[in-house]
Protein backbone atom coordinates (compact mmCIF):
# COMPACT_ATOMS: atom_id res chain seq x y z
CA UNK A 1 0.00 0.00 0.00
CA UNK A 2 1.28 3.46 -0.77
CA UNK A 3 1.15 5.19 2.57
CA UNK A 4 0.21 8.84 2.24
CA UNK A 5 3.47 10.18 3.65
CA UNK A 6 5.26 8.18 0.96
CA UNK A 7 3.05 9.43 -1.80
CA UNK A 8 4.84 12.74 -2.10
CA UNK A 9 8.19 11.05 -2.33
CA UNK A 10 6.96 8.57 -4.92
CA UNK A 11 5.53 11.39 -7.04
CA UNK A 12 8.72 13.37 -6.79
CA UNK A 13 10.76 10.36 -7.81
CA UNK A 14 8.31 9.70 -10.64
CA UNK A 15 8.58 13.11 -12.23
CA UNK A 16 12.28 13.55 -11.70
CA UNK A 17 13.03 11.62 -14.87
CA UNK A 18 12.27 13.42 -18.12
CA UNK A 19 11.51 10.14 -19.93
CA UNK A 20 8.69 9.37 -17.50
CA UNK A 21 7.22 12.81 -18.09
CA UNK A 22 7.39 12.24 -21.84
CA UNK A 23 5.60 8.93 -21.34
CA UNK A 24 2.86 10.59 -19.32
CA UNK A 25 2.55 13.29 -21.95
CA UNK A 26 2.09 10.67 -24.69
CA UNK A 27 -0.59 8.91 -22.65
CA UNK A 28 -2.42 12.17 -21.90
CA UNK A 29 -2.27 13.18 -25.56
CA UNK A 30 -3.77 9.83 -26.38
CA UNK A 31 -6.57 10.27 -23.85
CA UNK A 32 -7.36 13.72 -25.25
CA UNK A 33 -7.64 12.18 -28.74
CA UNK A 34 -9.91 9.46 -27.41
CA UNK A 35 -12.21 11.89 -25.59
CA UNK A 36 -12.39 14.68 -28.15
CA UNK A 37 -11.92 12.82 -31.43
CA UNK A 38 -14.88 14.46 -33.26
CA UNK A 39 -13.77 17.93 -32.16
CA UNK A 40 -10.11 17.46 -33.00
CA UNK A 41 -10.50 15.78 -36.39
CA UNK A 42 -10.42 18.20 -39.33
CA UNK A 43 -12.60 15.81 -41.40
CA UNK A 44 -15.06 13.01 -41.01
CA UNK A 45 -12.79 9.94 -40.87
CA UNK A 46 -15.15 8.02 -43.19
CA UNK A 47 -15.54 10.73 -45.80
CA UNK A 48 -13.86 9.80 -49.10
CA UNK A 49 -12.40 12.74 -51.01
CA UNK A 50 -12.26 10.87 -54.29
CA UNK A 51 -10.48 13.70 -56.08
CA UNK A 52 -7.74 13.72 -53.45
CA UNK A 53 -6.84 10.04 -53.30
CA UNK A 54 -3.32 9.42 -51.94
CA UNK A 55 -2.77 13.12 -51.63
CA UNK A 56 0.55 13.86 -49.85
CA UNK A 57 0.74 15.80 -46.57
CA UNK A 58 -0.24 19.42 -47.20
CA UNK A 59 -1.97 22.29 -45.47
CA UNK A 60 -5.28 20.81 -46.53
CA UNK A 61 -4.55 17.30 -45.31
CA UNK A 62 -1.85 17.57 -42.67
CA UNK A 63 -0.85 13.91 -42.85
CA UNK A 64 -2.15 13.25 -46.36
CA UNK A 65 -4.97 10.97 -47.50
CA UNK A 66 -5.28 7.24 -48.07
CA UNK A 67 -6.27 5.13 -51.07
CA UNK A 68 -9.91 6.18 -50.76
CA UNK A 69 -9.06 9.84 -50.19
CA UNK A 70 -9.87 9.70 -46.48
CA UNK A 71 -7.99 12.13 -44.24
CA UNK A 72 -5.26 10.20 -42.42
CA UNK A 73 -5.02 12.57 -39.46
CA UNK A 74 -8.75 12.26 -38.78
CA UNK A 75 -8.56 8.50 -39.04
CA UNK A 76 -5.58 8.35 -36.69
CA UNK A 77 -7.43 10.49 -34.14
CA UNK A 78 -10.51 8.28 -34.34
CA UNK A 79 -8.39 5.13 -34.41
CA UNK A 80 -7.03 5.99 -30.98
CA UNK A 81 -10.46 5.12 -29.57
CA UNK A 82 -10.20 1.50 -30.66
CA UNK A 83 -6.65 1.00 -29.39
CA UNK A 84 -7.26 2.71 -26.07
CA UNK A 85 -10.58 1.13 -25.16
CA UNK A 86 -9.31 -2.23 -26.29
CA UNK A 87 -6.19 -1.92 -24.17
CA UNK A 88 -8.28 -0.88 -21.17
CA UNK A 89 -10.74 -3.76 -21.61
CA UNK A 90 -8.02 -6.37 -21.94
CA UNK A 91 -6.12 -5.02 -18.95
CA UNK A 92 -9.36 -4.94 -16.93
CA UNK A 93 -10.12 -8.53 -17.93
CA UNK A 94 -6.61 -9.63 -17.09
CA UNK A 95 -6.74 -7.81 -13.77
CA UNK A 96 -10.03 -9.38 -12.79
CA UNK A 97 -9.23 -12.90 -13.90
CA UNK A 98 -5.47 -13.04 -13.42
CA UNK A 99 -5.34 -11.22 -10.12
CA UNK A 100 -8.01 -13.40 -8.55
CA UNK A 101 -6.37 -16.62 -9.70
CA UNK A 102 -2.93 -15.37 -8.69
CA UNK A 103 -4.15 -14.35 -5.23
CA UNK A 104 -5.79 -17.72 -4.65
CA UNK A 105 -2.76 -19.63 -5.90
CA UNK A 106 -0.29 -17.58 -3.91
CA UNK A 107 -2.31 -17.48 -0.72
CA UNK A 108 -3.22 -21.15 -0.52
CA UNK A 109 0.01 -22.48 -2.01
CA UNK A 110 0.50 -26.23 -2.17
CA UNK A 111 -1.79 -28.24 -4.43
CA UNK A 112 -4.08 -25.34 -5.35
CA UNK A 113 -1.06 -23.35 -6.37
CA UNK A 114 0.55 -26.05 -8.49
CA UNK A 115 -2.76 -26.85 -10.18
CA UNK A 116 -3.42 -23.21 -11.08
CA UNK A 117 0.13 -22.71 -12.21
CA UNK A 118 -0.10 -25.76 -14.47
CA UNK A 119 -3.19 -24.14 -16.00
CA UNK A 120 -1.25 -20.96 -16.74
CA UNK A 121 1.56 -23.10 -18.18
CA UNK A 122 -0.97 -24.55 -20.60
CA UNK A 123 -2.02 -21.09 -21.75
CA UNK A 124 1.61 -20.09 -22.06
CA UNK A 125 2.39 -23.09 -24.25
CA UNK A 126 1.16 -21.19 -27.32
CA UNK A 127 2.75 -18.11 -28.76
CA UNK A 128 0.26 -15.41 -27.76
CA UNK A 129 -0.16 -14.13 -31.29
CA UNK A 130 -0.94 -17.57 -32.72
CA UNK A 131 -3.45 -18.36 -30.00
CA UNK A 132 -5.17 -15.02 -30.49
CA UNK A 133 -5.27 -15.58 -34.25
CA UNK A 134 -6.81 -19.01 -33.79
CA UNK A 135 -9.53 -17.62 -31.54
CA UNK A 136 -10.21 -14.80 -33.99
CA UNK A 137 -10.39 -17.18 -36.91
CA UNK A 138 -13.08 -19.32 -35.29
CA UNK A 139 -14.98 -16.40 -33.73
CA UNK A 140 -14.72 -13.91 -36.60
CA UNK A 141 -13.88 -10.21 -36.69
CA UNK A 142 -15.19 -7.79 -34.10
CA UNK A 143 -14.15 -5.70 -31.11
CA UNK A 144 -15.68 -8.09 -28.56
CA UNK A 145 -13.90 -11.08 -30.05
CA UNK A 146 -10.57 -9.27 -30.04
CA UNK A 147 -11.07 -8.45 -26.35
CA UNK A 148 -11.94 -12.09 -25.69
CA UNK A 149 -8.91 -13.39 -27.59
CA UNK A 150 -6.45 -11.00 -25.97
CA UNK A 151 -7.86 -11.48 -22.49
CA UNK A 152 -7.66 -15.26 -22.84
CA UNK A 153 -4.03 -14.95 -23.87
CA UNK A 154 -3.05 -12.07 -21.60
CA UNK A 155 -4.32 -12.90 -18.13
CA UNK A 156 -1.39 -15.18 -17.31
CA UNK A 157 0.99 -12.24 -16.86
CA UNK A 158 -1.17 -10.86 -14.04
CA UNK A 159 -1.71 -14.29 -12.50
CA UNK A 160 1.99 -15.10 -12.32
CA UNK A 161 2.95 -11.70 -10.99
CA UNK A 162 0.28 -11.59 -8.29
CA UNK A 163 0.90 -15.19 -7.31
CA UNK A 164 4.61 -14.60 -6.76
CA UNK A 165 3.93 -11.51 -4.67
CA UNK A 166 1.14 -13.12 -2.66
CA UNK A 167 3.35 -16.13 -1.99
CA UNK A 168 5.94 -13.89 -0.39
CA UNK A 169 3.34 -11.98 1.63
CA UNK A 170 1.23 -14.78 3.03
CA UNK A 171 3.65 -15.80 5.75
CA UNK A 172 4.12 -12.28 7.00
CA UNK A 173 2.94 -11.45 10.47
CA UNK A 174 0.10 -9.17 9.55
CA UNK A 175 -1.55 -11.86 7.43
CA UNK A 176 -1.23 -14.37 10.22
CA UNK A 177 -2.64 -11.82 12.64
CA UNK A 178 -5.70 -11.33 10.43
CA UNK A 179 -6.06 -15.09 10.08
CA UNK A 180 -5.97 -15.60 13.82
CA UNK A 181 -8.71 -13.00 14.21
CA UNK A 182 -10.90 -15.34 12.19
CA UNK A 183 -11.32 -13.22 9.08
CA UNK A 184 -12.94 -15.03 6.16
CA UNK A 185 -10.69 -15.96 3.27
CA UNK A 186 -12.11 -13.59 0.61
CA UNK A 187 -11.76 -10.76 3.08
CA UNK A 188 -8.12 -11.63 3.74
CA UNK A 189 -7.43 -11.88 0.03
CA UNK A 190 -9.06 -8.69 -1.14
CA UNK A 191 -8.96 -6.42 1.89
CA UNK A 192 -5.57 -7.32 3.30
CA UNK A 193 -3.40 -8.97 0.66
CA UNK A 194 -4.49 -7.09 -2.43
CA UNK A 195 -3.80 -3.55 -1.18
CA UNK A 196 -0.23 -4.61 -0.45
CA UNK A 197 0.19 -5.76 -4.03
CA UNK A 198 -1.02 -2.54 -5.59
CA UNK A 199 2.41 -1.24 -6.60
CA UNK A 200 3.41 -4.15 -8.85
CA UNK A 201 -0.15 -4.46 -10.15
CA UNK A 202 -0.27 -0.79 -11.15
CA UNK A 203 3.04 -1.17 -12.96
CA UNK A 204 1.88 -4.32 -14.72
CA UNK A 205 -1.42 -2.68 -15.69
CA UNK A 206 0.40 0.28 -17.22
CA UNK A 207 2.93 -1.80 -19.13
CA UNK A 208 0.14 -4.30 -19.89
CA UNK A 209 -1.59 -1.74 -22.14
CA UNK A 210 1.24 -2.14 -24.65
CA UNK A 211 0.82 -5.76 -25.73
CA UNK A 212 -2.92 -5.69 -26.52
CA UNK A 213 -2.52 -2.51 -28.58
CA UNK A 214 0.30 -4.08 -30.58
CA UNK A 215 -1.45 -7.43 -30.98
CA UNK A 216 -4.74 -5.85 -32.00
CA UNK A 217 -2.95 -3.78 -34.61
CA UNK A 218 -1.34 -6.94 -36.00
CA UNK A 219 -4.62 -8.86 -35.99
CA UNK A 220 -6.46 -6.05 -37.72
CA UNK A 221 -3.61 -5.63 -40.18
CA UNK A 222 -4.02 -9.31 -41.03
CA UNK A 223 -7.74 -8.80 -41.52
CA UNK A 224 -8.85 -10.89 -38.55
CA UNK A 225 -9.25 -8.20 -35.90
CA UNK A 226 -11.37 -5.08 -36.02
CA UNK A 227 -13.65 -4.94 -39.11
CA UNK A 228 -12.27 -2.71 -41.88
CA UNK A 229 -15.12 -0.20 -41.77
CA UNK A 230 -14.08 0.99 -38.29
CA UNK A 231 -11.13 3.42 -38.31
CA UNK A 232 -8.27 1.63 -36.59
CA UNK A 233 -4.51 1.98 -36.86
CA UNK A 234 -3.90 -1.62 -37.85
CA UNK A 235 -6.65 -1.37 -40.46
CA UNK A 236 -5.15 1.77 -41.96
CA UNK A 237 -1.84 -0.02 -42.48
CA UNK A 238 -3.66 -2.94 -44.03
CA UNK A 239 -5.49 -0.77 -46.60
CA UNK A 240 -2.42 1.03 -47.86
CA UNK A 241 0.34 -1.53 -47.51
CA UNK A 242 0.44 -2.16 -51.25
CA UNK A 243 0.87 1.53 -52.07
CA UNK A 244 3.71 2.39 -49.82
CA UNK A 245 6.17 3.38 -52.53
CA UNK A 246 3.75 5.94 -53.97
CA UNK A 247 2.18 7.06 -50.69
CA UNK A 248 4.75 6.65 -47.90
CA UNK A 249 2.64 8.77 -45.54
CA UNK A 250 -0.20 6.33 -45.55
CA UNK A 251 1.87 3.58 -43.90
CA UNK A 252 4.24 5.76 -41.94
CA UNK A 253 1.87 7.82 -39.81
CA UNK A 254 -0.55 5.15 -38.53
CA UNK A 255 2.44 3.02 -37.49
CA UNK A 256 3.97 6.02 -35.80
CA UNK A 257 0.73 6.51 -33.88
CA UNK A 258 0.90 2.92 -32.61
CA UNK A 259 4.57 3.23 -31.70
CA UNK A 260 4.08 6.52 -29.84
CA UNK A 261 1.11 5.23 -27.86
CA UNK A 262 2.84 2.02 -26.87
CA UNK A 263 6.04 3.91 -26.11
CA UNK A 264 4.05 6.22 -23.82
CA UNK A 265 2.77 3.31 -21.73
CA UNK A 266 6.18 1.66 -21.67
CA UNK A 267 8.00 4.83 -20.63
CA UNK A 268 5.50 5.72 -17.96
CA UNK A 269 5.29 2.15 -16.68
CA UNK A 270 9.06 1.99 -16.50
CA UNK A 271 9.17 5.22 -14.51
CA UNK A 272 6.38 4.00 -12.24
CA UNK A 273 8.27 0.83 -11.47
CA UNK A 274 11.38 2.78 -10.60
CA UNK A 275 9.44 5.18 -8.41
CA UNK A 276 7.33 2.58 -6.61
CA UNK A 277 10.03 -0.01 -6.15
CA UNK A 278 13.38 1.59 -5.42
CA UNK A 279 14.85 -1.90 -4.95
CA UNK A 280 14.68 -2.42 -8.69
CA UNK A 281 16.34 0.87 -9.43
CA UNK A 282 19.79 0.76 -10.88
Amino acid sequence: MIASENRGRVLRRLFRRPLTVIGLFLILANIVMVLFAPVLSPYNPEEMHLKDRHSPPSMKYLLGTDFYGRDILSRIIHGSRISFTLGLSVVAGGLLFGTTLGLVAGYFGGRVDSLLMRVTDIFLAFPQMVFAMAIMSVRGQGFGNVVLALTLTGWTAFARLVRAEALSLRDLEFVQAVQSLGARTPRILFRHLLPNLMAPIIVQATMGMATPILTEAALTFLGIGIPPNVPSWGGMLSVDRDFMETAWWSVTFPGLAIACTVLGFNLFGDGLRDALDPKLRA
Partner: protein
Amino acid sequence: MVLYILRRLFQSVWVLVGVTVLVFALVQLIPGGPALMILGEDATAEQITLVNQRLGLDRPLHVQYLDWLGKVVRGDFGVSFQDSRPILPDLLNRMPATLELLVVAMFFSLIIALPIGIISAVKPNSLLDNVGRVLALLGVSMPSFWIGLLLIMVFARNLGWFPAVGRESWTSVIMPAFALGVSMAGILMRMIRSSLLEVLREDYLKTARAKGLTEKVVVLKHAMRNAILPVITTIALQVGNLLGGSVVIETVFAWPGMGRFCYMRMLQRDIPTIMGNLMLYAVFVCILNIVTDLLYAYFDPRIRYSG
Protein backbone atom coordinates in the same frame (compact mmCIF):
# COMPACT_ATOMS: atom_id res chain seq x y z
CA MET B 1 20.25 -33.93 -12.55
CA VAL B 2 18.74 -36.85 -14.46
CA LEU B 3 15.89 -36.77 -11.98
CA TYR B 4 15.43 -33.09 -12.69
CA ILE B 5 15.19 -33.67 -16.42
CA LEU B 6 12.74 -36.50 -15.94
CA ARG B 7 10.58 -34.33 -13.73
CA ARG B 8 10.57 -31.58 -16.32
CA LEU B 9 9.66 -34.05 -19.06
CA PHE B 10 6.82 -35.38 -16.94
CA GLN B 11 5.54 -31.84 -16.35
CA SER B 12 5.70 -31.12 -20.07
CA VAL B 13 3.58 -34.17 -20.82
CA TRP B 14 0.88 -32.85 -18.51
CA VAL B 15 1.07 -29.40 -20.04
CA LEU B 16 0.67 -30.94 -23.49
CA VAL B 17 -2.36 -32.94 -22.33
CA GLY B 18 -3.83 -29.67 -21.07
CA VAL B 19 -3.00 -28.08 -24.40
CA THR B 20 -5.02 -30.72 -26.24
CA VAL B 21 -8.03 -29.91 -24.04
CA LEU B 22 -7.63 -26.22 -24.77
CA VAL B 23 -7.20 -26.75 -28.50
CA PHE B 24 -10.22 -29.00 -28.56
CA ALA B 25 -12.24 -26.46 -26.59
CA LEU B 26 -11.37 -23.86 -29.20
CA VAL B 27 -13.54 -25.66 -31.73
CA GLN B 28 -16.47 -25.36 -29.35
CA LEU B 29 -16.06 -21.57 -29.51
CA ILE B 30 -17.26 -21.58 -33.12
CA PRO B 31 -20.63 -19.85 -33.20
CA GLY B 32 -23.18 -22.39 -34.39
CA GLY B 33 -20.61 -25.18 -34.64
CA PRO B 34 -18.21 -26.27 -37.38
CA ALA B 35 -20.93 -27.61 -39.66
CA LEU B 36 -22.60 -24.23 -39.94
CA MET B 37 -19.24 -22.69 -40.56
CA ILE B 38 -18.46 -25.10 -43.39
CA LEU B 39 -21.86 -24.91 -45.02
CA GLY B 40 -22.51 -21.20 -44.56
CA GLU B 41 -25.35 -19.25 -43.00
CA ASP B 42 -28.16 -20.62 -45.19
CA ALA B 43 -27.56 -24.32 -44.58
CA THR B 44 -30.62 -26.46 -43.91
CA ALA B 45 -31.01 -28.55 -40.78
CA GLU B 46 -30.66 -31.79 -42.78
CA GLN B 47 -27.40 -30.66 -44.35
CA ILE B 48 -26.02 -29.78 -40.93
CA THR B 49 -27.00 -33.14 -39.50
CA LEU B 50 -25.37 -34.86 -42.43
CA VAL B 51 -22.09 -32.99 -42.06
CA ASN B 52 -22.11 -33.54 -38.31
CA GLN B 53 -22.57 -37.25 -38.89
CA ARG B 54 -19.79 -37.44 -41.42
CA LEU B 55 -17.35 -35.55 -39.20
CA GLY B 56 -18.46 -37.49 -36.13
CA LEU B 57 -19.63 -34.31 -34.46
CA ASP B 58 -22.88 -35.92 -33.36
CA ARG B 59 -21.06 -38.04 -30.80
CA PRO B 60 -20.72 -36.97 -27.14
CA LEU B 61 -17.95 -34.39 -26.61
CA HIS B 62 -15.68 -36.61 -24.54
CA VAL B 63 -15.83 -39.37 -27.17
CA GLN B 64 -14.90 -36.85 -29.86
CA TYR B 65 -12.05 -35.55 -27.72
CA LEU B 66 -10.61 -38.96 -26.90
CA ASP B 67 -10.87 -40.04 -30.52
CA TRP B 68 -9.00 -36.92 -31.64
CA LEU B 69 -6.46 -37.22 -28.82
CA GLY B 70 -5.73 -40.82 -29.75
CA LYS B 71 -4.97 -39.80 -33.31
CA VAL B 72 -2.85 -36.81 -32.31
CA VAL B 73 -0.73 -38.95 -30.01
CA ARG B 74 -0.06 -41.28 -32.92
CA GLY B 75 0.99 -38.29 -35.03
CA ASP B 76 -2.19 -38.28 -37.08
CA PHE B 77 -3.35 -34.66 -37.26
CA GLY B 78 -6.14 -35.51 -39.70
CA VAL B 79 -6.79 -34.05 -43.13
CA SER B 80 -7.42 -30.49 -44.15
CA PHE B 81 -10.97 -29.25 -44.86
CA GLN B 82 -9.39 -27.25 -47.62
CA ASP B 83 -7.58 -29.71 -49.83
CA SER B 84 -8.11 -33.04 -48.03
CA ARG B 85 -4.35 -33.53 -47.72
CA PRO B 86 -2.84 -34.86 -44.48
CA ILE B 87 -1.96 -31.86 -42.32
CA LEU B 88 1.26 -32.85 -40.57
CA PRO B 89 3.52 -33.27 -43.63
CA ASP B 90 2.33 -29.93 -45.02
CA LEU B 91 3.24 -28.25 -41.74
CA LEU B 92 6.58 -29.97 -41.31
CA ASN B 93 7.60 -29.11 -44.87
CA ARG B 94 7.32 -25.45 -44.00
CA MET B 95 9.16 -25.69 -40.71
CA PRO B 96 12.74 -25.18 -42.03
CA ALA B 97 11.87 -21.78 -43.49
CA THR B 98 10.37 -20.67 -40.19
CA LEU B 99 13.32 -21.99 -38.20
CA GLU B 100 15.71 -20.15 -40.50
CA LEU B 101 13.82 -16.93 -39.89
CA LEU B 102 13.80 -17.47 -36.11
CA VAL B 103 17.50 -18.29 -35.89
CA VAL B 104 18.55 -15.27 -37.94
CA ALA B 105 16.17 -13.00 -36.00
CA MET B 106 17.64 -14.27 -32.73
CA PHE B 107 21.13 -13.72 -34.07
CA PHE B 108 20.28 -10.12 -35.01
CA SER B 109 18.72 -9.37 -31.66
CA LEU B 110 21.70 -10.81 -29.77
CA ILE B 111 24.32 -8.89 -31.73
CA ILE B 112 22.35 -5.69 -31.15
CA ALA B 113 21.46 -6.33 -27.51
CA LEU B 114 24.69 -7.75 -26.12
CA PRO B 115 27.08 -4.85 -26.75
CA ILE B 116 24.57 -2.11 -25.91
CA GLY B 117 23.30 -3.95 -22.83
CA ILE B 118 26.82 -4.55 -21.53
CA ILE B 119 27.97 -0.97 -22.12
CA SER B 120 24.78 0.33 -20.47
CA ALA B 121 25.44 -1.74 -17.38
CA VAL B 122 29.13 -0.92 -17.15
CA LYS B 123 28.48 2.81 -17.45
CA PRO B 124 25.03 3.27 -15.92
CA ASN B 125 23.37 6.65 -16.41
CA SER B 126 25.92 7.68 -19.00
CA LEU B 127 24.78 9.22 -22.26
CA LEU B 128 25.21 5.90 -24.03
CA ASP B 129 23.19 4.13 -21.36
CA ASN B 130 20.33 6.59 -21.71
CA VAL B 131 20.35 6.40 -25.49
CA GLY B 132 20.45 2.61 -25.26
CA ARG B 133 17.51 2.49 -22.88
CA VAL B 134 15.38 4.74 -25.09
CA LEU B 135 16.30 2.62 -28.13
CA ALA B 136 15.34 -0.52 -26.22
CA LEU B 137 11.94 0.87 -25.30
CA LEU B 138 11.44 2.12 -28.83
CA GLY B 139 12.26 -1.36 -30.09
CA VAL B 140 9.56 -3.00 -28.01
CA SER B 141 7.06 -0.26 -28.84
CA MET B 142 7.09 -0.51 -32.63
CA PRO B 143 4.85 -3.11 -34.27
CA SER B 144 7.14 -5.58 -36.02
CA PHE B 145 4.99 -5.72 -39.13
CA TRP B 146 5.21 -1.94 -39.44
CA ILE B 147 8.99 -2.11 -39.21
CA GLY B 148 8.74 -4.73 -41.94
CA LEU B 149 6.63 -2.45 -44.13
CA LEU B 150 9.06 0.44 -43.67
CA LEU B 151 12.02 -1.82 -44.49
CA ILE B 152 10.33 -3.00 -47.67
CA MET B 153 9.49 0.59 -48.59
CA VAL B 154 13.01 1.90 -48.09
CA PHE B 155 15.40 -0.96 -48.78
CA ALA B 156 13.47 -3.00 -51.32
CA ARG B 157 11.31 -0.57 -53.26
CA ASN B 158 13.38 2.61 -53.11
CA LEU B 159 16.96 1.40 -52.81
CA GLY B 160 16.53 -2.09 -54.22
CA TRP B 161 19.12 -3.60 -51.90
CA PHE B 162 17.07 -6.55 -50.76
CA PRO B 163 14.24 -8.55 -52.28
CA ALA B 164 10.90 -7.42 -50.87
CA VAL B 165 9.26 -10.83 -50.66
CA GLY B 166 9.90 -14.53 -50.96
CA ARG B 167 12.83 -16.75 -50.08
CA GLU B 168 14.75 -16.97 -53.32
CA SER B 169 18.20 -15.59 -52.46
CA TRP B 170 20.21 -15.70 -49.25
CA THR B 171 19.60 -11.99 -48.73
CA SER B 172 15.87 -12.63 -48.52
CA VAL B 173 16.00 -13.51 -44.85
CA ILE B 174 17.74 -10.33 -43.73
CA MET B 175 14.83 -7.90 -43.70
CA PRO B 176 12.17 -10.17 -42.21
CA ALA B 177 14.59 -11.44 -39.58
CA PHE B 178 15.57 -7.90 -38.65
CA ALA B 179 11.96 -6.74 -38.38
CA LEU B 180 11.17 -9.76 -36.26
CA GLY B 181 14.24 -9.39 -34.06
CA VAL B 182 13.91 -5.71 -33.14
CA SER B 183 11.52 -6.13 -30.21
CA MET B 184 13.47 -9.08 -28.84
CA ALA B 185 16.61 -6.97 -29.08
CA GLY B 186 14.90 -4.29 -26.98
CA ILE B 187 13.82 -6.77 -24.34
CA LEU B 188 17.19 -8.51 -24.20
CA MET B 189 19.00 -5.20 -23.95
CA ARG B 190 17.01 -4.29 -20.86
CA MET B 191 17.41 -7.74 -19.39
CA ILE B 192 21.17 -7.87 -19.97
CA ARG B 193 21.56 -4.41 -18.51
CA SER B 194 19.66 -5.08 -15.30
CA SER B 195 21.10 -8.55 -14.83
CA LEU B 196 24.66 -7.39 -15.35
CA LEU B 197 24.15 -4.34 -13.13
CA GLU B 198 23.14 -6.67 -10.33
CA VAL B 199 26.05 -9.05 -10.88
CA LEU B 200 28.53 -6.16 -11.03
CA ARG B 201 27.88 -5.57 -7.34
CA GLU B 202 28.88 -9.10 -6.39
CA ASP B 203 31.82 -9.80 -4.09
CA TYR B 204 33.45 -12.26 -6.45
CA LEU B 205 34.14 -9.47 -8.91
CA LYS B 206 36.15 -7.72 -6.21
CA THR B 207 38.08 -10.96 -5.91
CA ALA B 208 38.58 -11.11 -9.67
CA ARG B 209 39.87 -7.54 -9.74
CA ALA B 210 42.12 -8.16 -6.75
CA LYS B 211 43.70 -11.00 -8.74
CA GLY B 212 44.83 -8.39 -11.24
CA LEU B 213 42.47 -9.38 -14.03
CA THR B 214 41.80 -6.73 -16.62
CA GLU B 215 38.42 -5.01 -16.61
CA LYS B 216 37.58 -6.76 -19.87
CA VAL B 217 38.08 -10.21 -18.35
CA VAL B 218 36.27 -9.18 -15.18
CA VAL B 219 33.18 -8.00 -17.06
CA LEU B 220 33.05 -10.30 -20.06
CA LYS B 221 34.13 -13.51 -18.34
CA HIS B 222 33.43 -13.32 -14.62
CA ALA B 223 30.39 -11.07 -14.66
CA MET B 224 28.76 -12.09 -17.92
CA ARG B 225 28.89 -15.82 -17.21
CA ASN B 226 26.68 -15.09 -14.21
CA ALA B 227 24.58 -12.34 -15.75
CA ILE B 228 23.65 -14.54 -18.69
CA LEU B 229 21.65 -16.95 -16.49
CA PRO B 230 18.43 -14.93 -16.19
CA VAL B 231 18.90 -13.83 -19.80
CA ILE B 232 18.63 -17.45 -20.93
CA THR B 233 15.14 -17.67 -19.48
CA THR B 234 14.20 -14.42 -21.16
CA ILE B 235 15.51 -15.64 -24.49
CA ALA B 236 13.37 -18.77 -24.23
CA LEU B 237 10.24 -16.74 -23.47
CA GLN B 238 11.09 -14.43 -26.34
CA VAL B 239 11.57 -17.25 -28.82
CA GLY B 240 7.95 -18.14 -28.10
CA ASN B 241 7.03 -14.56 -28.92
CA LEU B 242 9.20 -14.63 -32.04
CA LEU B 243 7.26 -17.66 -33.15
CA GLY B 244 4.04 -15.68 -32.78
CA GLY B 245 5.56 -12.66 -34.48
CA SER B 246 6.81 -14.81 -37.33
CA VAL B 247 3.21 -15.45 -38.39
CA VAL B 248 2.74 -11.75 -39.10
CA ILE B 249 6.22 -11.19 -40.51
CA GLU B 250 5.99 -14.21 -42.81
CA THR B 251 2.75 -12.79 -44.12
CA VAL B 252 4.23 -9.34 -44.75
CA PHE B 253 7.29 -10.74 -46.54
CA ALA B 254 5.49 -13.66 -48.21
CA TRP B 255 7.96 -15.96 -46.46
CA PRO B 256 7.03 -19.56 -47.23
CA GLY B 257 7.02 -20.78 -43.64
CA MET B 258 4.68 -22.40 -41.16
CA GLY B 259 3.30 -19.09 -39.93
CA ARG B 260 2.12 -17.85 -43.29
CA PHE B 261 0.61 -21.26 -44.06
CA CYS B 262 -1.14 -21.22 -40.70
CA TYR B 263 -2.47 -17.70 -41.34
CA MET B 264 -3.88 -18.60 -44.73
CA ARG B 265 -5.60 -21.67 -43.33
CA MET B 266 -7.01 -19.53 -40.54
CA LEU B 267 -8.51 -17.16 -43.10
CA GLN B 268 -10.18 -20.18 -44.68
CA ARG B 269 -11.24 -21.43 -41.25
CA ASP B 270 -9.65 -24.78 -41.91
CA ILE B 271 -10.31 -26.11 -38.41
CA PRO B 272 -8.23 -29.34 -38.53
CA THR B 273 -5.19 -27.46 -39.82
CA ILE B 274 -5.58 -24.76 -37.18
CA MET B 275 -5.79 -27.39 -34.45
CA GLY B 276 -2.81 -29.29 -35.81
CA ASN B 277 -0.80 -26.13 -36.11
CA LEU B 278 -1.60 -25.06 -32.55
CA MET B 279 -0.50 -28.48 -31.31
CA LEU B 280 2.75 -28.21 -33.22
CA TYR B 281 3.45 -24.75 -31.81
CA ALA B 282 2.74 -26.01 -28.29
CA VAL B 283 5.10 -28.95 -28.74
CA PHE B 284 7.73 -26.56 -30.04
CA VAL B 285 7.34 -24.28 -27.01
CA CYS B 286 7.50 -27.26 -24.62
CA ILE B 287 10.69 -28.55 -26.22
CA LEU B 288 12.06 -25.03 -26.05
CA ASN B 289 11.34 -24.86 -22.33
CA ILE B 290 13.10 -28.14 -21.67
CA VAL B 291 16.10 -27.08 -23.74
CA THR B 292 16.17 -23.83 -21.76
CA ASP B 293 16.22 -25.71 -18.48
CA LEU B 294 19.05 -27.87 -19.72
CA LEU B 295 20.98 -24.83 -20.91
CA TYR B 296 20.39 -23.13 -17.59
CA ALA B 297 21.68 -26.16 -15.76
CA TYR B 298 24.66 -26.30 -18.07
CA PHE B 299 25.54 -22.68 -17.31
CA ASP B 300 24.82 -22.85 -13.59
CA PRO B 301 26.82 -25.54 -11.76
CA ARG B 302 24.73 -24.97 -8.63
CA ILE B 303 21.81 -26.56 -10.47
CA ARG B 304 23.86 -29.09 -12.41
CA TYR B 305 25.16 -30.69 -9.22
CA SER B 306 21.95 -30.91 -7.25
CA GLY B 307 18.69 -32.89 -7.20
